[in-house]
């Protein structure tokens, strides 16, 4: 039991700093930020906790609670994707996870999700978003609207791959 736990932990621990770097790198900070996981009690992991720390690009170490709303969202996404790499489910469903992100972080996140879902062995992503600079990078859109007369929801599907990809 302890060994299995350490196995899962070590796998995710390796992936978290790479995932966080990928999500935070940009023209201003080519190397991105740093994130890591530490075990309080290595031998008996169930008795201790798991500490998660994220340092946005060019910032020093601080408690997670001192980070801003957007910085916490990016850190949480990195953790989720790193955990997912250990036990990959065939698809993801994310509901407005970009709500606290500014324009540049929305772009970074959209490119990241796109890179994780397309290509061989990718994980299918289904993402609800209100921001056009997020969903214009998807392969297809499911447009939901309220039908006033029928007092219910209706859906239309659009295949975006027919149009040239936006830069």
């Amino acid at each position: 039991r302890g060994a299995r736990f350490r196995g899962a932990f070590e796998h995710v621990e390796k992936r978290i700093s790479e995932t966080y770097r990928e999500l935070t790198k940009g023209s201003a900070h080519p190397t991105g930020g740093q994130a890591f996981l530490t075990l309080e009690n290595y031998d008996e992991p169930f008795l201790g906790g798991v500490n998660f720390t994220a340092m946005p690009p060019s910032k020093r170490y601080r408690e997670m609670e001192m980070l801003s709303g957007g910085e916490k969202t990016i850190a949480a996404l990195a953790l989720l994707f790193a955990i997912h790499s250990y036990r990959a489910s065939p698809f993801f469903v994310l509901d407005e996870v970009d709500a606290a992100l500014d324009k540049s972080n929305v772009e970074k996140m959209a490119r990241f999700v796109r890179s994780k879902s397309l290509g061989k062995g990718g994980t299918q992503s289904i993402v609800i978003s209100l921001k056009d600079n997020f969903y214009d990078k998807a392969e297809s859109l499911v447009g939901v609207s309220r039908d006033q007369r029928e007092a219910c929801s209706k859906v239309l599907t659009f295949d975006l791959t027919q149009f040239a990809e936006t830069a």
Partner: protein
Amino acid sequence: GHLSRIELENFKSYKGKQIIGPFKKFTSIIGPNGSGKSNLMDAISFVLGVQSAQLRGSTLRDLVYAYDVQDSKEKRNASVSLVYVLNTNDEEEEEEEEDESEGRDGDKENSKKKKRQKRGEEEGEKNEVRFSRTISNSGASDYKIDNKTVTFEEYAEKLKQFGILVKARNFLVFQGDIEAVAQKSPKDLTQLFEQLS
């Protein structure tokens, strides 16, 4: 494999029968506030076995389409089906498990082909699996795989075969939950890792 389409019947704000899809590798769900986007995610979560409390309903009956409070006495049935398409190599994985006991490689290859043909004929070139969950007018919930009623354990077992672990739920992030993930206490994170391993 991947999620190909969702079929709804009287689920939350989706009245009557509606088929939603196809879902591609990267699909975004868009629309104005209150249109029914999160209800679609609730439908996907519901068919995977998530409890109604997590789907903003106190009872299963709350998840059935109702025009207003009066209307909910109509006692409509509701159901959601998730059609999951296997990759060709998924098939391999499924069959791998069955073939372990067979003879040498040559035989194995032939027998795999035959098996696939037989299977193909049986299910009409079927490389999809249909997971369904219903709500009856008495409020009971039923699970079906390819239209055959099964127990929840069998259902969860089949989902697990495709890597869908509903217990860990690390692949569903509900509206407003994302920031809470980063602020999980060390104890919570230990629990998450425990479920994972």
